[in-house]
């Protein structure tokens, strides 16, 4: 009993329960073959592309901020790579550096505007979202005369960022696993992680405790924008071309993954494992429906229902966790 309670108090609990629930639903009502689903690449590829963006977005949400400009940064990263290395024929690393530098730049702008003003970061990044969409489109059309740019990546870049392992699994999955491990270590084992939780819990107290809150916020925005342009860069290398559109779907999808993963929007609570599990759950719901007999038109309905149920679970589990903390505190006193 204590074991179950201890499990439920963890931020990842709801996402694991949701995953089990979704799989059970698909098996019972959709007749899905779990082995076939486990071997399939489609949902893992989907999860990896989304997960690389969802983790830093989740860290921002733990810190009490929001970044929706990622929707523009994914096409921005891929178009920058393709214009520099494809259209202008510069070395591959220049295109990659350009894409990542753009991420750093936009992240810095987001971060600076958020810490220097009282404007909520949702609105700040809505502004950079729309602005970057225009800049990316206009730049692509002005520089290349086309809304899609082709790119022939050299073999080493293909191998590192764009190969298909076993002919179906994108190599970006390994990047996702690696980045998840690094982020998990930073958030849960280093003082920077404690700072992030402190920032989301109470910003003023965090600053009074000597945490460089402004620098930390800007760094987190840089991480999320750069992660998005990294995903765009990998997509350009893999598919040999970059499109100016696409990416808008990532905004709500990433927020869904993070929230299903047990992060609360008001900040101060969450875990990387939770976000990771939330991403897997979301990907299984969105892509797994193709393995069921359920008409895929219902997938959005299932996503909506799962999101609300998972969030409701999170809320009640968090109350459980808080009451436990209070009880322990009382006992110690």
């Amino acid at each position, binding site marked *: 009993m204590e074991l179950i309670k201890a499990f439920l108090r963890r931020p990842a609990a709801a996402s694991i329960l949701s995953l089990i629930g979704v799989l059970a639903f698909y098996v019972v009502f959709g007749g899905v073959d779990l082995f076939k689903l486990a071997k399939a690449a489609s949902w893992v590829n989907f999860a990896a592309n989304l997960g690389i963006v969802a983790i830093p977005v989740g860290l921002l949400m733990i810190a009490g901020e929001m970044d929706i400009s990622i929707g523009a940064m994914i096409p921005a990263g891929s178009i920058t790579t393709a214009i520099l290395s494809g259209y202008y024929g510069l070395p591959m690393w220049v295109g990659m550096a350009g894409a990542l530098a753009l991420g750093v730049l936009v992240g810095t702008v987001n971060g600076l505007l958020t810490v220097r*003003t009282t404007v909520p970061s949702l609105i700040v990044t*809505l502004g*950079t979202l729309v602005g*970057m969409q225009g800049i990316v489109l206009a730049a692509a059309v002005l520089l290349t005369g086309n809304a899609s740019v082709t790119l022939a990546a050299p073999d080493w870049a293909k191998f590192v960022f764009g190969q298909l392992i076993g002919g179906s699994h994108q190599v970006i999955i390994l990047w996702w696993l690696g980045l998840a491990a690094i982020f998990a270590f930073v958030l849960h084992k280093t003082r920077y992680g404690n700072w992030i939780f402190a920032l989301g819990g109470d910003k003023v107290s965090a600053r009074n405790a000597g945490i460089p809150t402004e620098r930390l916020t800007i760094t987190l925005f840089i991480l999320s924008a750069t992660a998005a342009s990294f995903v765009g860069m990998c997509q350009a290398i893999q598919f040999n071309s970059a499109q100016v559109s696409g990416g808008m779907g990532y905004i709500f999808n990433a927020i869904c993954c993070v929230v299903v993963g047990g992060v609360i929007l008001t900040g101060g609570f969450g875990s990387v494992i939770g976000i990771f599990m939330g991403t897997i759950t979301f990907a299984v719901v969105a892509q797994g429906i193709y393995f069921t007999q359920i008409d895929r*038109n219902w997938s*959005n*309905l299932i996503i909506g229902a799962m999101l609300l149920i998972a*969030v409701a679970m999170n809320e009640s589990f968090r109350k459980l966790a808080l009451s436990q903390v209070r009880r322990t505190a009382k006992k110690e006193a």
Partner: protein
Amino acid sequence: MTVLTTHKGGFGRLARRPEAGSFLGMIVVYIFFAALGGQNFVGSPGWSSWLNMAAEIGTIALPVGLLMIAGFLDISVGAVLPASSLTVAIISGHFELPLYLGVAGGLAVGLLVGFVNGFLVTRTTIPSLILTIGTMFGVMGLTLGLTILIAGSTGVFIVPDTLSHAIFGAALGGMFQIGIFWWLGFVALIYGMLHLSPWGNWVFALGGDKESARNAGIPTRALTIQLYMLSGFAAAFVGVTQVITFGSAQVAAGSSFIFNAIMCVVIGGVTLTGGAGSVIGIVFGTITFAIVNQGIFFSGLDPNFGSIIIGALLLTAVLSNDTFRAMALRYSARK
């Protein structure tokens, strides 16, 4: 001396009003595109194109703005719009029932989704952003699934009768859609509700401090549900006018309205933190947004510059609101 001070105070008060910045932005943007677009833009082709757009977005932006003044967000409007137009098309097009039943059904869908949003927001601690993302996905899925189930395709056609077309879909002079007049009507109505009735004071109080608002005896739960039903209704209304104007309804429509409506509201000087804003500001913000969006096609510039201008406008608007608000607060503190 007295005259001078009142004049000075009057000007100061004007500059501190929430809509001052958005009015300035609107004028600047209009002059900019008038200079580039010339006769066509300042004539009826230009006016009708941005007014038509402003009417559609503006109808949704008004209640979304009220929600934001009260400290809430509504993402689900992007899914309610196609849900309502498909309801109309399925009831009156596919099943060939009278159109007034279809219109009633479409509007009822909006009110229902709004009620669910409001009910869940007031009964749980889930933030409204997340909650309405959930209902957005849910309504999107239901719309798509039910449409395929009933009609067998993602687009449904409808032939509106003359009277309904005159009420919801007429175009004056072939250019100015009747939606513009509906929008102006809604503006007057919402203006009265927010700025002239005690109900409006409640909305501001709710956005300023929810706890104190409830302690002061304001029925905060009922108020929140009313606000969400209002935004659901508005989105459904635009869906109804669209399906009657174009004679068909598509499943994949409306998602652009989510961020566009929020942008109109923010350019209009409403802060997301709640408690501040005005209907006139939202109207100015909507017009500004529509002028940029449509004016770009008259200007000879690359259409993509429109997005850049809107992004810049949005950031300028929020930054200047920030300054204006600080000014206003400092002023009232000094008093």
